């Protein structure tokens, strides 16, 4: 006998992720699960709960608050209740709970859910930090390390449970949309955890080479590394290659481009799914939640490939690895710095110079090393014309070395002074005024530059 499933009146997909309680109330009322009296009771109880929370918020010292404060606390209360209601498997059951429970009871249950989610999120965060990928980008570090710590420190479930506080700049492959507060952070960290777990199937060096193929300067870009890794791994399987080394040679990539371009959308989706199954077998993936995560990535990868076929940009999706360590390095020495007293005297003279032409002549005459040039450009603010005159006879590698240090690779905890920031702005503006050919030459050199410092 076939199983009989109960008819459900409310479809979860029609409910809002962010305003779950309100949308459930509306759906339950329109389907007749709740009556007008039930809705009125719930609304009145929400106001009572708000009044209690505001009394606590003001320490009983003020009977009124600004509308924005009340609105924020109300949103927080409704969010907390929504979290509890979402824990029901079916919305119909949650609607029944609305009928028999008081708002206060629902809110208390919601608080318990928040506590559990917060604890779990902290645990996942700790696990992620323990196994940080070696190819982590700047955006990854800023979001996962700094951003999350700041969230856990400032999250206020009592009055702002719905607030996320931070912007998750590092994107996940499978979007974590329509969620806020601890629910968003929990889901976001879970996604990062599965992405890292998948990437851990590959050697860090191979992933680094693959991402270098995506862009030489990939650590400074905001993009999802896992998406590049899984796409390449699937591409390897489509090309009948071993995926483990993430190495899709140019010839194989070319054949694959021809093959993929000839596929219809359903054929493409089926091919990607088969390749994914083969990939799971090759990598011996047995972790079911991670498998579900990668499954959900497949339509995104298929869309990305379809889009690239349509825009004839498949080369940007099917990446071949690059080996930056094999690229010849151009070593640029910043040279010796002037003796401190001598430098101070010189800097004062330059700053006090009455005429621009004298200042330019003095800088050209006296500055012998890149180290001194760098110092004086930071310490003495030059006009755009003066900067142009001073830098006009400098070779592209010299400009590239300054650009690398100040515009591309400022230190991780970069605490640039106002003078440094001002110099960086002026220098960037100067570079933008250069002829395109000279700009291209500098940009080509920057990744190959290795700066050598000498002691003064």
């Amino acid at each position, binding site marked *: 006998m076939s199983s009989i499933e109960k008819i459900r009146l409310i479809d979860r997909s029609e409910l809002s992720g962010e305003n779950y309680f309100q949308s459930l109330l509306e759906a339950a009322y329109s389907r007749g699960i709740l009556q007008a009296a039930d809705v009125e009771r719930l609304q009145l109880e929400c106001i009572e709960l708000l009044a209690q929370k505001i009394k606590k918020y003001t320490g009983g*010292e003020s009977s009124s608050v600004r509308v924005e404060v009340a609105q924020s606390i109300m949103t927080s209360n409704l969010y907390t209740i929504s979290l509890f209601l979402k824990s029901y498997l079916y919305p119909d059951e949650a609607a029944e709970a609305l009928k028999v429970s008081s708002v206060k009871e629902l809110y208390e249950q919601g608080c318990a859910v928040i506590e559990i989610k917060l604890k779990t999120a902290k645990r996942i965060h700790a696990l992620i930090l323990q196994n940080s990928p070696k190819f982590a980008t700047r955006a990854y570090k800023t979001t996962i390390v700094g951003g999350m710590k700041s969230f856990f420190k400032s999250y206020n479930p009592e009055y702002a449970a719905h607030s996320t506080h931070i912007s998750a700049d590092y994107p996940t492959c499978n979007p974590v949309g329509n969620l806020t507060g601890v629910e968003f952070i929990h889901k976001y960290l879970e996604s990062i955890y599965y992405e890292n777990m998948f990437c851990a199937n590959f050697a860090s060096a191979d992933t680094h080479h693959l991402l270098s193929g995506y862009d030489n300067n990939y650590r400074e870009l905001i993009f999802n590394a896992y998406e590049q890794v899984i796409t390449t791994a699937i591409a390897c399987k489509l090309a009948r290659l071993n995926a483990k080394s993430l190495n899709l040679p140019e010839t194989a990539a070319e054949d694959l481009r021809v093959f993929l371009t000839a596929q219809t959308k359903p054929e493409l989706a089926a091919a990607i799914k088969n390749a994914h199954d083969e990939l799971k077998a090759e990598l011996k993936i047995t972790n079911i939640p991670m498998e579900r995560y990668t499954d959900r990535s497949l339509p995104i990868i298929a869309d990305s490939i379809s889009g690239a076929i349509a825009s004839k940009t498949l080369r940007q999706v099917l990446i071949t690895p690059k080996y930056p360590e094999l690229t010849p390095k151009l070593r640029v020495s910043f040279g010796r710095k002037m003796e401190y007293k001598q430098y101070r005297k010189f800097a004062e003279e330059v700053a006090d110079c009455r005429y621009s032409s004298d200042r330019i002549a003095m800088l050209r005459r006296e500055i012998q090393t890149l180290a001194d040039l760098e110092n004086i450009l930071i310490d003495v603010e030059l006009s755009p014309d003066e900067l142009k005159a001073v830098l006009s006879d400098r070779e592209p590698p010299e400009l590239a070395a300054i650009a690398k240090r100040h515009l591309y690779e400022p230190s991780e905890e970069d605490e640039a002074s106002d003078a440094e920031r001002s110099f960086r702005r002026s220098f960037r503006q100067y570079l933008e005024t250069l002829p395109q050919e000279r700009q291209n030459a500098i940009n080509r050199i920057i990744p190959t530059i290795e700066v050598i410092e000498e002691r003064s």
Partner: protein
Amino acid sequence: MAFDLTPFSSGMLQRQTVDAIVKCNDFTIRHGLILTPQQALELVETRAVALSENGRVEFGTGILDKIIREFCDSPYITMQNYMETLHELIEMFYYFKNETQDSISDDELIAFMSRSFDNVCHGSLELLSGRELPELAGNLRAGIDPRSIELIYPKDVDPDIAPNTEDENE
């Protein structure tokens, strides 16, 4: 489904507030001041307008009965100007609650208003709203501790005891 933040649209809560105001008559009658239920309702309506104009919401019976109890023994208030004064005080209260950035409690603000009105303003609402309260707001925004302001905490009052109109009057 909207969740209205204006609880006083509910008739029941409005009635509760009117009752609380009328109940103050038991206390104010000894100063020759009395309000009819209709007048109490008008005060509640003034409050609703003042709250809305100042972007605030209030729960419970609010500060109306506190203002009545604090001001009823003023030598400058008689039955002739009682209602008009209360309307103006209510409007003033919410406006300066914002101006003081919620840095002092309801009781502290009402105590300051009452003492200023009876002393330095000599019963002038214009001086209260145009001079004393803006100066208080400026001082508080500049970071001055309310406990050092004598019109909130007179020297003979222990600053650890918050102003409480009911205790003082009863």
